């Protein structure tokens, strides 16, 4: 392709993103190092030395990582099962998987309130079965947030993984079997490593999604603040844009750090991924 054509094709999109994303983000990050016209780290110092800020960051990270791991654990077997089905059944299950994605996160959080509440569905069932004497207190805890987030993002990881699993050459599995690998060994030694690229994409989507989720923690998390509600509170309620910008920068940095750690782990599992 000629250079000129290439530029012509890439430029509009690139300009658009540059003006409306790259520059604003760069400026946002830039302003956090400027206070009264001079360069400073003080904003970050305050943030990182403050137990309160750090506990919010910690909780958010914990919840998002837990969500990501839970999604993988729940999603992988399901994706594996779906990918082995015949095409008609496969399509139907995939549609059912995608369907929750079409429903607003607000509504999905609502239904979890109905389910997880003190007198909610879950406790009703548990109490009436005599499995518990006291109702479980899940709603308004990080657990509730995690459940809500898993519900939100599980479809994403399933759909992504089904795509990857479908592309694995079935002969590789047969080759492994003929070399003496049991079904479990085939899964551990061949399927899993080969899924790493898809797993990465899926995990990143889930992690970023839950790290930045706003609605679900706000509705299910009770008094537990997470970083996105904190950012929102600072930007909108308190109008503290300096702190909001610092939080934004930290969120970007944390996201990239986590993604690159994930990449490292993935590389260990499958150096060719």
């Amino acid at each position, binding site marked *: 392709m000629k250079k000129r054509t290439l530029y012509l094709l890439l430029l509009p999109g690139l300009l658009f993103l540059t003006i409306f994303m790259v520059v604003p983000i760069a400026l946002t990050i830039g302003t956090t190092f400027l206070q009264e016209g001079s360069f400073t780290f003080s904003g970050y110092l305050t943030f990182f030395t403050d137990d309160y800020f750090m506990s919010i960051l910690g909780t958010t990270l914990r919840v998002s990582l837990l969500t990501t791991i839970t999604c993988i654990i729940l999603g992988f077997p399901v994706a594996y099962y779906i990918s082995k089905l015949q095409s008609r059944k496969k399509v139907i299950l995939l549609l059912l998987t995608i369907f929750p994605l079409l429903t607003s996160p607000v509504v999905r959080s609502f239904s979890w309130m109905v389910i997880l509440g003190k007198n909610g569905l879950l406790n009703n069932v548990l109490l009436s079965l005599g499995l518990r004497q006291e109702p479980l207190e899940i709603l308004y805890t990080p657990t509730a947030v995690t459940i809500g987030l898993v519900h939100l993002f599980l479809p994403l990881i399933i759909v992504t993984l089904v795509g990857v699993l479908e592309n694995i050459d079935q002969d590789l599995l*047969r*080759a*492994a*079997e003929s*070399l003496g690998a049991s079904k479990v060994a085939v899964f551990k030694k061949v399927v899993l*490593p080969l899924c*790493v690229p898809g797993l990465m994409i899926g995990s990143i989507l889930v992690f970023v999604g839950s790290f930045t989720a706003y609605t679900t923690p706000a509705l299910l998390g009770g008094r537990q603040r997470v970083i996105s509600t904190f950012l929102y509170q600072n930007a909108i309620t308190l109008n503290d844009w300096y702190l909001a910008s610092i939080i934004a920068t930290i969120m970007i940095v944390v996201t990239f750090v986590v993604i690159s750690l994930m990449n490292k782990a993935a590389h260990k599992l*499958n150096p060719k991924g």
Partner: protein
Amino acid sequence: MALLSLQNVSVAYNKQDILQDFNLNIEKGKLISLLGPSGCGKTTTLRLIAGFLEAGAGKFLFQEKDYTKVPVNKRNFGFVFQNYALFPHLSVFDNVAFGLRLRKMSKAEIEKRVARILEIVNLVGFEKRFPQELSGGQRQRVAIARALIIEPDLLLFDEPLSNLDANLRVNMRVEIRRIQQELGITTVYVSHDQEECFSISDQVAIMNKGIIEQLDDPATIYKHPKTKFVADFIGYKNFITFDERIDHGESIQLLINNHRFAVKRYSGAGYDASLIGAIRPDHIVIKPHSEERSDENSLHGTIKVSTFLGRGYQYMVETPIGQFTVNEETEKPYSIDQDVILEFPKEKLVLVE
């Protein structure tokens, strides 16, 4: 007693029979090729033996034990896939060591064995490479090494050389045969390439639509195809359907439109009533019209098409009993519409069912 024995096996995909009442016996240490047109069921047979596929009916005996229900990973058969099926996430070393690791072998032992097998397949120094970083022939050899190292009781090859260029193919097939004989591993080999099958095998099975039409040693198949299908498949392009046949001890007289032909009786053949004669384009002798023509096994004809093939010319010759394809290595080509004499050597013309 055969090492491996398929007895009246049937396989169907979507209710369509692929193999039906299929029988095959293989003796220990032998290499047997399956040869046949695309879609005839070669891969299906291999997959059945490997255990990737379950037979609908019939028995699969191995070392006289019923193997029908033995799971793939308990069979200890090596499978070399058409597309190699190397693990893309593992290095050459790890690919080859895969089977040994599953057998919980000590690290030192694994290293020793891998080193030895890599030497056999001539891949010393490539241990750390990944499959994507190898040429076709090298991948091929890794696949073979990976199958060999587990010291399988049976080795199954599915068109292992189909993706290689001519020179590499020849080298590799010599290599495969050498290793197979050296280690004495019973082998089933599938290929499209006839020369390959003939050159590598102890026995060749010619398959057609899910049945074996002929199973014999390569030379017998080549020289004495049993059926018209086999003959056609292995290059007998010319067929003559005779009107009459008179058996004279070692010789058989055949008649068509006043033309007389004779063939030698082949003792191994059971087709005592056949009237179809077959001959290769290479074996018909072409002579200028001016030369003398014998009464028997000879025809007048006219050149219709002439094609240069490299090692000679191919002619389409029109005769009173039909068109014949003839290959000749002569220096001076015959020209179009030239009249010629065709001779059908008695010992090259065969009768098929």
